């Protein structure tokens, strides 16, 4: 199983980092205004927005290799939540596109979004 690459500082993400928790619920609304709600899924799924700046060429290359090894959104990997250190074993990238920009030497940036998969 692949593991999400860490930076040379051993960090996974930089500020500003985003984290989402998503439930899947359905609501049935009746004519009298009352509602009945139920769960569509067994629990929440997590998603992380990772914006990386000031990367050096080795770090960018590692992220590119990781993206290629995953074939974009297809592959699964283990991801360590940078907030609490919990490891989520079944995650994947959400996007099919990885854009990296080298503004100068040792000054690259990119954005990734990781999502937890169910099942």
């Amino acid at each position, binding site marked *: 199983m692949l593991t999400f690459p860490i930076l040379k500082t051993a960090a996974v993400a930089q500020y500003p980092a985003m984290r989402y928790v998503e439930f899947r619920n359905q609501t049935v609304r009746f004519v009298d205004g009352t509602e009945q709600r139920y769960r569509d899924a067994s629990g929440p799924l997590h998603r992380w927005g990772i914006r990386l700046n000031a990367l050096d060429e080795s770090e960018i290359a590692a992220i590119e290799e990781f993206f*290629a090894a995953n074939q974009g959104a297809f592959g699964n990997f283990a991801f360590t939540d940078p907030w609490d250190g919990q490891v989520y074993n079944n995650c994947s990238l959400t996007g099919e596109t990885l854009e990296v920009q080298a503004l100068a030497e040792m000054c690259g940036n990119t954005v990734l979004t990781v999502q937890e998969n169910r099942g």
Partner: protein
Amino acid sequence: MLIYPQLGTGALSQFPIRKRRTQRTVVNTTADGTSIKLADASGGATQWELTYEELSDSELSALEQFFAAAEGSLNGFVFLDPAGNLLAWSGKLDNPVWTPGPMLSVTGSIVDPWGGTQAWRLANTGNGAQAITQTIQAPSGYLYCMSVYVRSPLPTIATLLLGATRGDRSVNSQWNRIEFAASGDGTESSVSFGLELPAGASVEVSGPQVEPQGAASLYKATTTGGVYLGARLANDTLKITATGLNRHSCTVNIIHADHL
């Protein structure tokens, strides 16, 4: 086959470089959030946006001639990733892309300069010089820089091979990055890079890298390498701005699709 031109400095592009890699996956997401995925391994593409500033007349002329020869997006060409390591499997010297000499033993899992175990030990057990080489489908006349981290318990000489040219570098017991930049003299469509050791030498190596420029940048581990055959210009228009005497700027968009 056409070849994307280098600038007068030997570099292939200037900062900023924007690179976009795209893959294709068919995803069927069910109501509870479970996903069923189907990969399209050959549906990937890579795009570069190369921004040039302060080009001289001769550099601009080379770009214009190339654009005319490619006829915009019509004809394919060889493109070397300006931000990449051209060698494939740079961290796996036992991969078949590497050709070791018959008397050269290659051993992995050696402690590398970064504290991991990704280095390799090359031991020449023969009576003559032995080399490990990799041949890439790139123009032999380009300016290249080859670099590699080396150390050896006994001082020795390692020779970096770049096509027909050779550069001797001393190796000691500390990790040092040796590099060698040279232009090939031929018009061949492939060029070999390698490291040659004298008889009896044992050298630990890590991070071999080849770049289409005059000096080495930070090491980038690879699997596929940075040579793109069949790349194309993404546009049929080349917009050039003359900002002064002998000073020009333009932007070039290049695309390489795995399925073409």
